[in-house]
């Protein structure tokens, strides 16, 4: 088990390293921060020396070869330094500090949404498989089908519009924009924040639940037709107990591989959520970093998603190792 996990982790580390390097090199060669910061059409050209100093301080000088900059960046990475953000302000704010500030905000969403969505999806998927062809099955199946066919922004808009309608009708609604209210303190601030997180979490959770319930239904139906479940019933377990004792665990095993890459899609989902609910998280930062050609910032975000993928894939393997003695 330890051996199995450590080999897998090593593979993931290599993959994530390659993916991040690839992304850094692309960002460094495709982005032109100098054009954004010092546009040629600017009314008052910045002195060449100032511009060079600015670019060098951030390791984004286009005159330095890409691989030299990559080596610099790697050197910084080893020391735990992700470089400095690009921006109109002249202060050298480290990418790591920005990420440290924003990661808790994003992670709260991603983790909560994924956990609730997974649990819900697994439960719905199993129930629909067991009560196949029932009214509940048809309803849930149709609903998950529609949800996976909708783009994330549309679902967010639907949720926001419903909230708006309730607020108009009853005068009581959830805060739609801004996760925190700077005017409130103590208990009130906590209350506000808990209310603000409801809608974003719902959005992320229903996406996760919809796709997980679809996978879970397929694996559960496979289990329902299996010989070992028939054996369990022949031993004297009722349908329900046989499913709980033998079926559930077997049906969960193949779910691990879906979970491994689920965090990637959760990041995409949280990016939309952060944009549309105005959360100052990593996703929103990614959009603005790419927008202003912030190479170090983009690379930092890539590293963050890479580590997230690494962790979730490892967790999935760990889960699979616990569930399935055959791969230990």
């Amino acid at each position, binding site marked *: 088990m330890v051996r199995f996990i450590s080999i897998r982790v*090593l593979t993931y580390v290599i993959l994530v390293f390659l993916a991040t390097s690839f992304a850094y090199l692309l960002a460094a060669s495709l982005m032109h921060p100098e054009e954004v910061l010092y546009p040629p059409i600017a009314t008052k050209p910045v002195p060449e020396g100032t511009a060079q100093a600015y670019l060098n301080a951030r390791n984004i000088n286009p005159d330095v070869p890409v691989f030299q900059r990559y080596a610099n960046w790697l050197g910084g990475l080893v020391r735990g330094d992700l470089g400095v953000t690009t921006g109109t302000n002249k202060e050298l704010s480290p990418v790591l500090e920005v990420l440290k500030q924003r990661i808790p905000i994003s992670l709260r969403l991603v983790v909560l949404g994924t956990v609730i969505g997974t649990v819900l999806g697994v439960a719905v998927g199993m129930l629909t498989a067991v009560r196949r062809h029932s009214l509940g099955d048809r309803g849930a199946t149709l609903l998950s089908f529609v949800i996976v066919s909708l783009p994330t922004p549309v679902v967010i808009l639907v949720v926001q519009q419903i909230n708006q309608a309730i607020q108009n009708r009853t005068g009581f609604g959830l805060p739609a924009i801004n996760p925190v209210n700077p005017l409130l303190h103590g208990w009130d601030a906590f209350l506000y924040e808990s209310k603000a997180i409801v809608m974003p979490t719902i959005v992320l959770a229903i996406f996760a639940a919809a796709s997980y319930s679809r996978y879970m239904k397929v694996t559960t139906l496979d289990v329902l037709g299996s*010989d070992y479940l028939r*054996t369990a*019933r*022949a031993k*004297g377990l*009722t349908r329900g107990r046989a499913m709980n004792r033998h079926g559930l665990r*077997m049906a969960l095993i193949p779910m691990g591989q879906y979970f491994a890459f689920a965090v990637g899609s959760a990041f995409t989902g949280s990016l939309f959520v952060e944009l549309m609910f105005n959360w100052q998280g990593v996703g929103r930062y990614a959009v603005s970093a790419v927008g202003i050609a912030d190479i170090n910032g983009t690379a930092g975000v890539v590293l963050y998603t890479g580590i997230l993928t690494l962790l979730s894939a490892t967790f999935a393997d760990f889960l699979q190792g616990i569930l399935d003695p*055959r791969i230990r």
Partner: protein
Amino acid sequence: MSDPILTVTDLSVGFETEAGHVQAVQNLSYQVRPGEALAIVGESGSGKSVSSLAVMGLLPGSAQITGDIELMGKKIFTMNDRELSQLRGDTISMVFQDPLSALTPVFTVGDQISEVVRIHHPDVSKQKAADRAIELLEAVGIPEPRRRAQQYPHEFSGGMRQRVMIAMAIANEPELIIADEPTTALDVTIQAQVMELLKSAQEMLGAATILITHDMGVVAGFADRVLVMKDAQMVETGDVEQIFYEPREQYTRNLLSAVPRIDQGAEGGSVAGAAMRKVAEVATSEDSRPREERPVVLAVEDLHRIYPITKGAVVRRKVGEQRAVDGISFDIREGECMALVGESGCGKTTTLMEIMQLRTPQQGEIRIDGRPTGSLSRKERAKLRSEVTLVFQDPMASLDPRMPIGDILKEPMRVQGYSAKKMNERVDWLLKTVELKPEHASRYPTEFSGGQRQRVGVARALACDPKLIILDEPTSALDVTVQAGVLALLADLKTRLGVSYLFVSHDLSVVRHISDRISVMRKGQIVESGPTERVFDDPQHEYTKELLAAVPIPDPKVARTRSRNVIDAAAFRGHAAGGTAESSGSVRA
């Protein structure tokens, strides 16, 4: 006579499928009395398995069931799932066909056995149930039961898993045990052990048993009464002697006469094997020339195939080697059928693949028509592909479902560059030769039954006038009556066209009817070889004797003389010595 344990009255089971209504069982009635062993026999699709699942109340919800099943005075169709669950595993238990998939892979074997105890006796403590599981494992002859109980099903061999299934089935001393094809997936020596175990378990418990099988040989040694089914209906039922010696119905007679038997049914009164004897007559009609004068078609000399066993995912290192084929030699002459016999894992398939590769083997030499395969040029090798051909085991898998059979037959001819006209003529001839209609050339394989598909497979092997056809278990996926037909065809082709066969099989009784010579393989080596008659009548090697003794004989009188007692009754009663002694007392109800 005592009251029946099980009474099935006018049972019908149907399913709605896309192809329309399928009647799986129709108007089936039978009774089972205490201590009696009933065998339900039939070919695939006869409805024998469905009827037994109905008794267990385990049919899927989509099944339409009519009739009545009464188990010890209780009508099971009036019971709900909870009430039925109390009977299952306690009063009535079942051993399933495929031991590979019948055990839950994620629980230890011990847990799965103790579970069946605890389901029906919730007052038994976990510890006692675990001890009981160990006793049961010991009773069914699993060595080191205490250690084995901690292991998972994938660490057990097929035969061992079937023993575990039996341990679960007898755990609560059921009144009725249903065994559904319990040995179909097992090797013949393991089959013999498992059947003996089942028989002695039944005798010890005094339980009634229903054995569902397609194998007449197994029936003869096990059953008191036999019920023959065909196409969802009962054909006839009677005592085992009556069925085997004086079958009333023509179908039973056909079924029995198609059964191959190693003793060729020379003595005893059983009908079994009558048709197969005719096959043997055709197959063994001697070539006029003595063997030594005929040219050698295939010669294998000192062939080795060794697979390294590696460990480690990142840095692979060799930790050992598996000698799949370990220095075997044999030759096949023109117009001769050589059988290569052995149990699974003995290396016969590896041998066959080594020959079909037409490459230089790791060690040793393969010569076809006197030419070593290693020395061939690309062109010669392509030419040789037409002279050595293969018939596969599974006729469902060996024909491309997306290709009409005409195209399938043309494929090898196209490689050899035949003209279109010649190919068409040849397809006609081939289909006629294997007793199919030439106008079927445009049909797809799925439109044919198993036996017909295997005929297409044989026709494909014949397409370019081969010198040698390698038959890889050509009939083991077929029902016996169909098998008899295919074997008769093969025997006929051999004498008519003068081709040679390398007949690879695990089934000694089939081989006896078609081969001229036999080589018995075990662990990559040939332990004994010689003319068929000699090997069967006077086996020299221990292993050959063991194999022959394990083959079931479809004759009740002969079969009965062969069984032995194997269950460890002491262990079952909980009085076993050794590791389980400290478990105080029995937990049985």
